[in-house]
């Protein structure tokens, strides 16, 4: 029987190949994701451990609470005097201090050098102990006074070399340095496209405003001293606010942020692989169902020859198992190619990921193959049971239809139940009480899967009506071919429904994303226009990095500037929870206008040393009113008590502030190197070209600072969202490509099935181009059905999500929906090319003889 299945597949190469593609694409994505992220993981591990090769122990500043990565908040530095104390310990051979911070390199054109959104890292280096340096020297010499070393990758891209001058901006204005050498980060050119700059310790301390302080001490023990013993010895003399780790522990700690990023990237990309596989399951299910229907006589003959139902079922399952396995193996190896491609792509957009060779782990092989094979198997179960219902008598009698299954008459009720269960799951996930993130995601994913399956099943009864409507223009203006296309699309509702369903899923997800994004943009724009009453905003060039406070101070000096208000942000501990807090300087009162529940806009300028304001929700949650005290613990461990002076009602786009907002003066006292996320400027005369020029002039010493009008500011803030949106579209396109193959497959099979019919049409005078037209139109009708159901479903799903996130107002993405519908028509046209050509090539005479 197995041999029979294999031979059967070999006899149906084209359809097997087209069906297999549906699996291959999904598995490629899964395998590629694993290979990519594993490779990055290993490369980073190697980098971080190489950095601490000669280090037995490290001493670092300790924040008062766990800082979440990427928050921009760093642990406070500690007094430099600790270093000689540590060096004096009996088992310590060496103790080298260092500082780090953000260091912008400024090109000869006066602009800061940035690659994509990559960070700009600055370090101190000790020329006497290169083995203790994070950076390794590639060319030239370690830096002395007034000198800098930069990474080879930036140097080669910006044509920098030893001996040249370069500007560096850290906390203050730009300072000019001479390049003394070129360096690498550990063993790699750079990480994530970051620019690297190294200075001697006093220079770095000055640049990062950490004079007399250190971020880290690296310690080497005397020979024969165990690391544990060394750590114990150091721990005994550590002042509060510092901690000691072994070199290995420190490497793991440093790797934590990147590990979290890689793990996020892994799950993010895997999700799209799994979506593609889910869509693929529909395609496989559909192709197999059609194939079974076309093999009725063959299967019936097998039954007359003594094959049992089990054998027939087994033969179908073996066939899909073999196809699924081959497709998964192909996908697995194509994943290697995809990972290589993604490395190149990231490199091309300036986000260079370290790559020390592709990692092809057992987990990658097992998970990719299992996913591909299991999805194929599941999709083949129903068709396999359908095959068992082929009656033996079909071997001798023409036109015997396969009896509907036992549950067929409950099809619509079952579909309705599945759909309702799906929506119930979604609702529970969104609005259920006390669910953790994992449960929320689980319910939502499960809910969506059920909704998609249920809607796909429910749509079959709608097909005749939908084809009637969508086929009308073709039938009206396309003559006989158009009318036939409409009827063909409607003659097998089940088939059309499940073909369209594959495309529906992709379009529903794309629409969901577009609706969410559109609503966010709309709401955000509204919120900015509501609260931001200044003329200009000052942000970093990349729109999100914090900028030195000196920039705002410089802007305030410019002629015509009436007020500058800046907002700082960072992590704090409030009511026992680490959360973002914000700080404002008095100028904010003139550029930001809030809707106050208690207090007035004057509060913004009158916070003083111990004043604070919070939003309505937070006040309600913690029972706060004007006059209530709030305790805020800062990253340095100090706790201050602040008195509520005002409570505001945030706009629907979300509050621009953290949980608690205090004055900039109070903030700066407790946070190392405070920075502004943005500053707003009010100018005499408002938005004019002259004013923009004046501001630009004032900010010239801060190349990373950018002046934007209100409109530009909104645009800039949204641009990040737009790039994310584009990435999502590209990744979702994968599942649309899978459904495209599904449509091709259905059409090819339908053309094959209708060989005799098409031959007859040709014989009675249908031209080749009419034949092509007929197939193409049928294809477009099918895709449009998928598109319409998908778009409606996507909008509904987005509506549900927006209902949950009450910060966003729903906005219908009209333009995008039109674009998606046009794209669906294109998918239909594209899918029809090959099947239409096959249909047109049929020789009428041969087609009629076809048996």
């Amino acid at each position, binding site marked *: 029987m197995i041999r029979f299945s294999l031979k059967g597949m070999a006899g149906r190469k084209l359809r097997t190949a087209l069906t297999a593609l549906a699996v291959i694409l999904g598995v490629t994505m899964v395998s590629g994701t694993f290979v990519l992220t594993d490779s990055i993981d290993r490369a980073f591990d190697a980098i971080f451990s190489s950095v601490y090769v000669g280090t037995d122990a490290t001493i670092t500043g300790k924040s008062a609470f766990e800082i979440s990565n990427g928050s921009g908040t760093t642990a406070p530095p500690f007094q430099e005097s600790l270093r000689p104390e540590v060096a004096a310990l009996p088992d310590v051979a060496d103790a080298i201090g260092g500082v780090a911070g953000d260091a912008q390199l400024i090109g000869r054109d006066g602009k800061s050098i940035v690659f994509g959104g990559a960070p700009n890292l600055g370090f101190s280096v000790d020329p006497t102990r290169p083995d203790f340096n994070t950076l390794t020297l590639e060319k030239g010499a370690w830096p002395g006074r007034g000198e800098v070393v930069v990474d080879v990758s930036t140097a080669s891209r910006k044509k920098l070399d030893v001996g040249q001058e370069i500007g560096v901006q850290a906390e203050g204005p730009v300072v000019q340095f001479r390049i003394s050498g070129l360096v690498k980060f550990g063993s790699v050119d750079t990480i994530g496209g970051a620019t690297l700059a190294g200075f001697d310790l006093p220079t770095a301390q000055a640049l990062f405003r950490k004079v007399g302080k250190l971020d880290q001490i690296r310690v080497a023990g005397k020979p024969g001293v165990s690391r544990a013993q060394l750590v114990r010895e150091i721990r005994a003399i550590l002042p509060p606010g510092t901690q000691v780790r072994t070199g290995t522990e420190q490497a793991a700690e440093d790797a934590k942020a990147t590990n979290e990023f890689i793990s996020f990237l892994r799950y993010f990309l895997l999700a799209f692989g799994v979506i593609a596989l889910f869509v693929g399951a529909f395609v496989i299910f559909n192709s197999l169902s059609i194939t079974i229907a076309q093999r009725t006589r063959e299967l019936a003959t097998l*039954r*007359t*020859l*003594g*094959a049992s139902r089990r054998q027939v079922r087994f033969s179908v399952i073996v066939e899909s198992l073999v196809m699924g396995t081959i497709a998964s193996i192909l996908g697995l190896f194509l994943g290697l190619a995809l990972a290589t491609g993604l490395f190149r792509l990231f490199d091309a957009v300036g986000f260079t990921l370290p790559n020390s060779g592709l990692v092809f782990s057992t987990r990658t092989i097992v998970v990719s193959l299992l996913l591909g094979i299991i999805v194929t198997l599941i999709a083949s179960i129903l068709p396999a049971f359908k095959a068992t219902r082929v*009656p033996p*008598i079909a071997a001798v009698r023409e036109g015997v239809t396969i009896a509907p299954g036992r549950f067929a008459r409950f099809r619509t009720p079952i579909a309705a139940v599945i759909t309702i269960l799906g929506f119930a799951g979604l609702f529970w996930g969104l609005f259920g009480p006390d669910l953790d993130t994992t449960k929320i995601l689980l319910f939502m994913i499960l809910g969506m899967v059920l909704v998609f399956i249920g809607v796909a099943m429910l749509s079959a009864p709608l097909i005749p009506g939908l084809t009637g409507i969508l086929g009308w223009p073709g039938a009206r203006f396309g003559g006989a071919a158009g009318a036939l296309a409409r009827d063909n699309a409607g003659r097998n509702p089940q088939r059309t429904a499940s073909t369209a369903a594959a495309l529906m899923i992709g379009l529903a997800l794309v629409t969901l994303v577009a609706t969410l994004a559109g609503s966010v943009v709309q709401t955000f724009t509204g919120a900015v226009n509501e609260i931001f009453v200044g003329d200009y905003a000052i942000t970093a060039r990349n729109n999100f990095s914090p900028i030195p406070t000196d920039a705002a101070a410089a802007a305030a000096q410019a002629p015509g500037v009436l007020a500058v208000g800046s907002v700082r942000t960072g992590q704090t501990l409030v009511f026992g929870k680490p959360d973002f807090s914000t700080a404002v300087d008095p100028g904010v009162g003139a550029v930001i206008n809030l809707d106050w529940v208690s207090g007035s806009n004057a509060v913004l300028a009158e916070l003083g040393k111990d004043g604070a304001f919070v939003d309505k929700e937070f006040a309600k949650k913690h029972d706060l009113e004007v006059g209530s005290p709030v305790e805020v613990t800062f990253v340095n461990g100090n706790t201050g008590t602040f008195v509520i002076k005002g409570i505001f009602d945030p706009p629907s786009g979300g509050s621009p502030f953290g949980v608690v907002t205090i004055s900039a003066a109070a903030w700066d006292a407790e946070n190392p190197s405070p920075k502004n996320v943005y500053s707003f400027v009010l100018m005499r005369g408002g938005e004019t070209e002259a004013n923009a020029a004046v501001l630009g002039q004032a900010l010239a010493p801060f190349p990373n600072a950018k002046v934007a009008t209100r409109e530009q500011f909104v645009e800039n803030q949204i641009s990040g969202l737009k790039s994310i949106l584009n990435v999502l579209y590209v990744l979702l396109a994968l599942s649309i490509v899978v459904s495209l193959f599904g449509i091709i497959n259905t059409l090819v099979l339908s053309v094959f099935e209708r060989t005799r019919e098409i031959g007859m049409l040709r014989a009675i005078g249908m031209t080749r181009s009419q034949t092509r037209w007929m197939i193409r139109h049928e294809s477009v009708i099918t895709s449009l059905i998928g598109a319409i159901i998908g778009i409606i479903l996507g909008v509904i799903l987005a509506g549900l999500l927006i209902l949950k996130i009450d910060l966003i107002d729903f906005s219908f993405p009209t333009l995008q929906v039109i674009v998606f519908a046009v794209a669906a028509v294109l998918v239909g046209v594209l899918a029809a090319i090959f099947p239409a050509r096959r249909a047109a090539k049929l020789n009428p005479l041969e087609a009629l003889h076809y048996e």
Partner: protein
Amino acid sequence: MENGDRAAVLVARDVTRRYGDGDTAVDALRGVSVDVPAGELTAVMGPSGSGKSTLMHILAGLDRPSTGLVTVAGKEITDLGDSELTKLRREHIGFVFQFFNLLPMLNAEENIVLPLTIAGVKPDRAWLDELIGSVGLGDRLHHRPSELSGGQQQRVAIARALVSRPSVVFADEPTGNLDSRTGGEILELLRQAVEEMGQTVVMVTHEARASAIADRVLFLADGIIVRELSGASAPEIGAAMEAISSE
């Protein structure tokens, strides 16, 4: 299956078959009783719509009678479930179809042994060689059906029907899709199977020439057996058919 007692391999008693119900009901068979003796070739004849195909489907267990009994090799089959019917087909029934029904991806030999493959039985090489020799396919064994002529395909189908030495072979218009010369060869093969192997064969046909090879011819009209001839020649059978059709 030693010849001699001529026991009935196939027995039908008062078989009726009604399709549909109410006003649109059609009675395809209206009370048919038949005994098919072992080792004989029985032909079933009748005009279109006489019920001859329905009778064959019911005798072969492909369709169920509305009332009445059918036994194959002594076993009553009318109430059997699907898996018992499958077992019955494996052990007792062979088929020869009008359109050959060979599996296109298997070659001639694979098609021939397919019933054994399905049953999980290893073919007896000597028997297989004898069978292949007797249907005259020696040099075409490794060809696919698409590379064989219609006559050759039907030879493969006959070998396939005989390979498991079933109690009875049903042949449904075996010459219906062949020219008369090739059809003649196929009929000879069927006759040969009866003569040399003692095979029981039931053949449905509308050709008098085909029925002439039968030991016994049953004539059906409007769902009942109206006449029976034994050892009749083609002209006699033709005349009988003529008489039935004009009634």
